């Protein structure tokens, strides 16, 4: 029984990280069909933002610097996203493969930039005191930093969902995604909606970076560890579907956790990939489907 609880928590924890890195992509990839390979580097930028704030405030104010890191990383990564959208991506809408190559190159440049600024060595972010240790429930030890990541994800999901459903701005975003021509002749400034969508999506990558900085060392290539998983979550979930991404992240996290138990991490990774391939053969459109602008159009 303990084993099952333990693996459930591990699965949930993996799921929360997967979802955290994928949430931004539900906007840029899911809503706008932009394959932004530099998304991983936006995650990196968020992680480094945490590091910079921590260095600036000193170790005495870890909790404060960590609390500030969440909005700061959102702004930093969001601004990077806005710049990328303005300089590159707006010229490449409707050309997903070109975007893929160009943003991959931008990602490499950002990695080098991080190396130049912070050095090639990894840096470490210390978790604030309140997140050290953990608690034990039914024989399973739950670490506070893992629980904190789950809490961040839950919070971000609630904020995004209410933004999309309740505010006129979120409705416009959905409207532009569903029918760009109709939205534009209804008076929606579609270019501004594009920019806003990209800003939010990129900013969420920054928030993911803050969470990830709790899990290990922060280095220039940290984004590479997450970018593929993030795309997989969005694809398995169904493009542009928040609900789909949540379900997909949970499914992949649990699969990973339970396959890993009794085998190894590598076997689990391979097993999950195999499951994804099989699943996409059966349901190429993902878990949750919605009519949308086609990728090829």
């Amino acid at each position, binding site marked *: 029984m303990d084993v099952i609880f333990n693996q459930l928590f591990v699965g949930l924890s993996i799921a929360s990280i997967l979802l955290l890195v994928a949430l931004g992509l539900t906007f840029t990839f899911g809503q706008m069909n932009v394959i932004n390979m530099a998304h991983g580097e936006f995650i990196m930028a968020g992680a480094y933002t945490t590091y910079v704030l921590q260095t600036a405030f000193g170790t005495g104010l870890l909790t404060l610097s960590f609390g500030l890191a969440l909005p700061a990383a959102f702004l930093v990564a969001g601004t990077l996203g806005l710049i990328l959208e303005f300089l590159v991506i707006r010229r490449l809408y409707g050309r997903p493969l070109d975007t893929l190559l160009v943003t991959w190159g931008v990602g490499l440049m950002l990695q080098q930039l991080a190396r130049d600024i912070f050095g090639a060595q990894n840096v470490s972010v210390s978790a604030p005191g309140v997140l050290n240790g953990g608690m034990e429930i039914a024989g399973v030890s739950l670490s506070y930093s893992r629980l904190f990541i789950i809490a961040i994800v839950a919070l971000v999901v609630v904020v995004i969902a209410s933004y999309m459903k309740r*505010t*006129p701005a979120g409705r416009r975003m959905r*409207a532009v995604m569903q*029918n760009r021509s*109709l939205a*534009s*002749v*209804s*008076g929606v400034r579609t270019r501004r909606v594009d920019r806003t969508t990209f800003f939010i999506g990129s900013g969420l990558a920054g928030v993911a970076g803050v969470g990830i900085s709790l899990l290990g060392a922060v280095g220039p290539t940290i984004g590479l560890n997450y970018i593929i998983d993030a795309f997989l979550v969005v694809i398995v979930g169904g493009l542009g579907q928040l609900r789909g991404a949540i379900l997909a992240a949970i499914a992949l996290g649990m699969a990973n956790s339970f396959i890993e138990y009794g085998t190894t991490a590598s076997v689990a990774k391979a097993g999950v990939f195999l499951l994804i391939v099989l699943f996409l053969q059966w349901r190429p459109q993902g878990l949750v489907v919605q009519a949308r602008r086609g990728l090829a159009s």
Partner: protein
Amino acid sequence: MSSVMLEVRNLVVAFGAFHAIDDLDLTLHEHEVRFVIGPNGAGKTTLIDSITNLVRPTSGSIRFAGEELIGKSEHAIVRTGIGRTFQKPSVFDELTVLENVDIAASFRLRFRSLLKRRRGISDEVAESLDSVNLTAQRDEPAGSLSHGQKQWLEVAMVLVQRPRLLLLDEPVAGMTEKERLHTGELITQIAQQGTTVLVIEHDMDFVRRFAHKVTVMHEGKILTEGTVADVQQDETVREVYLGRPRDARGAAEALA
């Protein structure tokens, strides 16, 4: 004659070597209801597309109430008071009927207020839903509406913006007889309230019943203009329709 609302001069829209609109002139006056007919590929929809900037004209000028429209962005054109519908019913399927109209109604909203939740519905939104008989369906997703209701919803979305010029692309296609009648009455009523209306229509029965002045387009040009009776007796109009076998049905109707 009342004042000129829309003035299209020497308009050319070229897609490569093909001229979808070829040196076209068109003038619409205030309060006018103008029907535009013509065989498939005559450039009727392209005309509306270039007025609303969904298609960029190659040359020429489109002036609305004296203001040049070419070069303006789509939302700027909406703000000058031009609304349109599409040939294929185009609504935001995943949003509710009310949300659809609300998006159109909020076209003048400032950016900041876009983040506020708003409660209740404004009079204009309620009124426009009422004018197309969709008040009862307002919380249903627009995708679940019937074909005709979707077209009405599109009309409601345009009406809520109180346009001075309304461009309707085949508004009654696929509607039942009762729905057509209602739509025709609605168009007449909109015009009486001071809006200039341009209607592209294939259904000659509908054109005969509600049109005063008809413009016939053919191969990107204006073939002729006049009353329904004038147009029906025009030799060139007969030729255009009869010369193209695939439009035989249209020809039969046009000449009936």
